[in-house]
């Protein structure tokens, strides 16, 4: 064994001993006495898994998998060539067709999951404007989702305003909330911004939770109307409620597509470039005449608008809202999607939403472990793939990463 290898295994031994010391007290010390069985069984599983990974890593270092490299490289090159030959519009059309045909091919449960995924795609894209494009870490993003949801919920219940009218109203309200939150925070250092937005997110939730007369507090708002529509039937237009899952699916699909187009356009617009300039080097951007404060505020407001739209739909779909849906963990989820997918990348965010919402539905038995795994994956991703699963193309190296 080389010195490096033995060092590696020594490190492994220390890490595993350390892990046992951390694990056992949590599981093994009981008032009735000390137990070892459960913690040892978990520990063994982890230790074996880690040993296998480490062994594979060593074999790879040793060149054992070199015979695999050539075929895999050839395969990925072939796949790339094939992808390059298929025109982009064709690929997009295929995806759109799949999305449109989805409800006809699947059943209720799948519709339900798909609707969640689409809601989170809108949220992810909205947050992506703030985090990915403008580089502002927002940990209270779900507050805008809440503002949108409550705006529609209250307008619908008290004034019976229609969903379609409330959509722009809720978007406006969220944008205003975004500006209110953004204004005092945007002069702050990047990492302070994170904790302050987190605080604001909590404030919004606490206010919703305690303002009984307006929001009915923790009991939530009931009786929210579905989106309505006029349908041509028997020679006249007739008002119907779009409350089947299929109909809702098409509504959110439309909203998501609008969002994708809007964010795509934004990405390549003058403002999008200005966002990037601010993200990469604020001082230089200012010297070039970019009003950074106003631009950041705009990013906040735009992100908030998408949050508000998603929130409005969420309220209409659930027909019920309560503060529980707007906790910090939801903000963290949306952020995890953006980070996992690739900051600033539209397909990345879509991929991230699929991975974080649809995948756990497949492994339903492991519901409990979902956030646990997310947290771990988030930390590990930062080490091994900090740019995400599908990194944005135009995004250059951040100025602080270069040095």
């Amino acid at each position, binding site marked *: 064994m080389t010195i490096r290898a033995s060092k590696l295994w020594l490190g492994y031994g220390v890490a595993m001993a350390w892990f046992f010391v951390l694990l056992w*007290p949590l599981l093994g010390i*009981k008032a009735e006495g000390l137990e070892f069985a459960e913690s040892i069984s978990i520990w063994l599983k982890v230790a074996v898994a880690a040993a296998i990974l480490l062994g594979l890593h060593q074999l790879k270092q040793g060149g054992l998998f070199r015979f695999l490299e050539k075929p895999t490289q050839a395969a990925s090159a072939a796949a790339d060539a094939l992808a390059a030959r298929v025109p982009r519009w064709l690929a997009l059309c295929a995806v759109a067709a799949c999305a449109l045909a989805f409800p006809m091919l699947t059943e209720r449960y799948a519709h339900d999951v798909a609707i969640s995924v689409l809601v989170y795609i809108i949220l992810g894209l909205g947050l992506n404007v703030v985090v990915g494009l403008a580089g502002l870490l927002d940990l209270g993003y779900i507050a805008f989702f809440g503002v949108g949801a409550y705006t529609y919920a209250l307008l619908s219940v008290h004034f019976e305003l229609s969903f379609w009218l409330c959509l722009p109203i809720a978007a406006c309200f969220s944008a205003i909330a975004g500006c209110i939150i953004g204004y005092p925070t945007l002069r702050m*250092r990047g990492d302070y911004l994170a904790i302050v937005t987190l605080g604001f997110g*909590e404030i919004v939730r606490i206010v919703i939770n305690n303002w009984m007369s307006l929001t009915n507090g923790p009991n939530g708002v009931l009786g929210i109307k579905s989106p309505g529509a006029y349908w041509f039937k028997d020679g006249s237009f007739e008002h119907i409620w779009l409350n089947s899952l299929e109909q809702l699916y098409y509504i959110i699909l439309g909203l998501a597509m609008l969002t994708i187009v809007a964010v795509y356009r934004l990405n390549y617009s003058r403002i999008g470039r200005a966002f990037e300039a601010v993200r990469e080097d604020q001082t230089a951007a200012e010297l070039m005449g970019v009003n950074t404060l106003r631009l950041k505020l705009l990013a906040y407001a735009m992100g908030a608008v998408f949050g508000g739209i998603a929130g409005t739909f969420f309220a209409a779909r659930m027909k019920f809202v309560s503060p529980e849906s707007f906790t910090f963990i939801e903000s963290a989820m949306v952020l995890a999607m953006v980070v996992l997918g690739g900051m600033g990348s539209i397909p990345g965010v879509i991929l991230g939403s699929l991975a974080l919402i649809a995948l756990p539905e497949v492994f339903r038995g492991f519901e409990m472990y979902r956030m646990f795994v997310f947290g771990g994956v988030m930390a590990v991703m930062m080490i091994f793939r900090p740019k995400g699963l599908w990194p944005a193309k135009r995004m250059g190296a951040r100025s602080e990463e270069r040095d």
Partner: protein
Amino acid sequence: MEFLLQQLVNGITLGGVYALVALGYTMVYGIIQLINFAHGEIYAAGGYMGVILISWLFAQGYPPAICLGAALLLAMGYCALLAMAVEKVAYKPLRHSSRLSVLLSALGMSIFLQNGLMLTQGVYDRAYPGEMVQGGFEVAGAVVSYMQVIIVSVTIVLLLALNLLVFKTRIGKAMRATAQDKTMSALVGINSSRIISLTFAIGAALACAAGIMVGLYYGSVRYDMGFVPGIKAFSAAVLGGIGNITGAMIGGLLIGMIEVFAAGYISSEYKDVFAFIILIAVLYFMPTGIMGENVDDTRV
């Protein structure tokens, strides 16, 4: 008047706890410029270790004082090891990455640890074994429970010990030197990795003590108990001037007082909001805090 005095007693108790947690934030920020989101979870883990160890020791028939003391020390050691592991796994490999990456990694660790606690300890509250410390006494109409006396005295002892460590010992000087200039401290022979590890361990031990005492005070712990106090303690650290150890102590005390008085005189439903509002106001109007920052921010 009695009400005021009572609020003062409660405010000092709570403020001491925030001060202990705030120190971990401020020390870590001072040395590697990271908001350690996982710190609140270390505090929660401390609370759980307290329950676990005290329940076990209590069942073995040891007297309460010994249970408490032994559990405190053992749990502090446990949390120190936990925080060092977090640092080694999630932060050290990212020492040369962008700040956003480290921050997200910290957030990931926070979620990971919180859910790890939930998976191993359950979703519901876990109670401390009944009536460890009971009773109290009255001073000018205000009731001071013995638990409060314990909290305040343990806090004072720990704060004094920390002050001695940081300002009087060789290792404390090395910690401050590393926070001020990592390259230069390497050039005089200080191993900065080891010092950073130690900083995490000390911060975690203090947070752990706070977690145990809060658990004892309220009688139970919960897996997500670290989240809100974490933000408040961070607010305290910012209020005192991030990186400033004395500032964190004063900031913690102030935040505790403000919370208790706001709950008592304004509205108890909105008590959590006040800490956040202070955080925002401080960052907006005096971003370096009341005692001044001690951060050499070479990366901004």
